[in-house]
């Protein structure tokens, strides 16, 4: 419950943030909503001698919808994301997924950037972002760069972000067609036993394109290219669903924990994926 002591910074510009990160290296961390970092600090699983609060940095909480391009500032809270009518119609999968994340209080504080940057395979947004083929935008001492969400995750808590970089926003093209985020969990606020993000577009009664990503079934989110490909050109019938599930099962690598043994998680992953595909297809 009691975190170790630290120095607290609340800078107003990203330049100051980067300077503090460069000065203290591994000993400094940025904090967004604090709802993964503070719990870890309270359990002394994370020690952060220099804590940089991002709440005063201008523009980080902006939601921009320009034509088909959507950009979410890293400090956009789950609550703001659920509440934003324009975003809910442009990319409804985000609202559907956000409502399955944590609980009301956590959603007032927890941010999209923190969720995506955290690197915990339990987080839901990384899979959603892979499904959307989002770009993750980072700023560091050498300027800014973008990384595809599909290339961002390396291992549990290990991402492509360098220690002196900050995730500032996430951008993607507004999806077309049907969508679903289906999550099996033990109770409200739990990380998924298995979850699936699905986007499907339809043309002449057939699947024109499909994107499928799975949550908490490996040490990273899993975008299953093969699973999506198995649906394309089909009428999304039972055989196509079986083929997509078989392809997905080839890409995941769940670990046993309190949510169940590996065989159970693989079973649940199949059930959840079928439900998600069916719902996305109905909406396509």
């Amino acid at each position, binding site marked *: 419950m*009691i*975190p170790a002591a630290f*120095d607290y910074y609340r800078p107003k510009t990203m330049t100051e943030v980067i300077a503090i990160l460069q000065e203290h290296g591994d000993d400094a961390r940025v904090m967004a909503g604090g709802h993964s970092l503070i*719990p870890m600090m309270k359990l002394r699983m994370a020690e952060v001698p220099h804590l940089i*609060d991002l709440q005063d940095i201008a523009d980080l909480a902006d939601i921009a919808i320009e034509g088909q391009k959507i950009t979410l500032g890293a400090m956009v809270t789950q609550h703001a994301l659920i509440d934003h009518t324009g975003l809910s119609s442009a990319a409804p999968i985000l609202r559907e997924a956000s409502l399955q994340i944590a609980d009301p*209080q956590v959603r*007032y504080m927890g941010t999209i950037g923190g969720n995506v940057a955290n690197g915990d395979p339990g987080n839901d947004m990384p899979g959603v972002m892979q499904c959307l083929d989002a770009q993750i935008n980072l700023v560091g001492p050498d300027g800014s760069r973008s990384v595809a969400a599909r290339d961002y995750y390396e291992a549990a808590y290990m991402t492509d972000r360098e220690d002196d970089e900050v995730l500032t926003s996430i951008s993607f093209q507004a999806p077309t067609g049907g969508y679903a985020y289906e999550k099996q969990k033990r109770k409200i606020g739990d990380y998924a036993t298995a979850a699936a993000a699905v986007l499907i577009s339809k043309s002449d009664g057939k699947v024109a394109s499909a994107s499928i990503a799975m949550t908490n079934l490996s040490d990273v989110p899993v975008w299953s290219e093969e699973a999506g490909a198995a649906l394309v050109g089909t009428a999304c019938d039972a055989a196509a669903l079986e083929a997509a599930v078989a392809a997905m099962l080839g890409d995941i690598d769940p670990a046993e924990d309190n949510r169940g043994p590996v065989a159970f998680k693989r079973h649940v992953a199949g059930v959840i994926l079928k439900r998600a595909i069916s719902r996305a297809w109905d909406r396509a």
Partner: protein
Amino acid sequence: MSDKMHIKLKVNGEDKEFLAEPRELLIFALREKLDITGPHVGCETSHCGACTVIIDGKSVKSCTMFVGQANGSEITTIEGIGEPDALHVLQESFREHHGLQCGFCTPGMITRATKLLEENPTPTEEEVRFGMAGNICRCTGYQNIVKSILAAASELNAAKEAAQ
């Protein structure tokens, strides 16, 4: 040891100033520095919601916020929601519908419910249950908490209509 910070908060309408270590969690600043002991601590993993307060219009678990993050904020705790001789409709309703037993979750429940009814003045039972999902209760089984909140909502809406 890091330097103490000068913290200014407005709590339940009153200006408060004190010194605190950066690592101090808001819940402990409220309880130990300001003697506002209605908000409780029921866990160390941010699940239970017994520490829920309203900060700048958001329902927040004050065990998961450092005091520096709240610096400059306006905070409402259960103590600012009603007075013993002039209870808030929700407080009256929790009493009337037996929405509490040991009372440990109640301050967090009522501060959260205040915000819930502000955002959704006419919730369904399902919306109440979902909207209160960040608050755990060991005693009531939730049924009477839901009743209390729905009854308070009707009463608040009736009062609003009568005023128009």
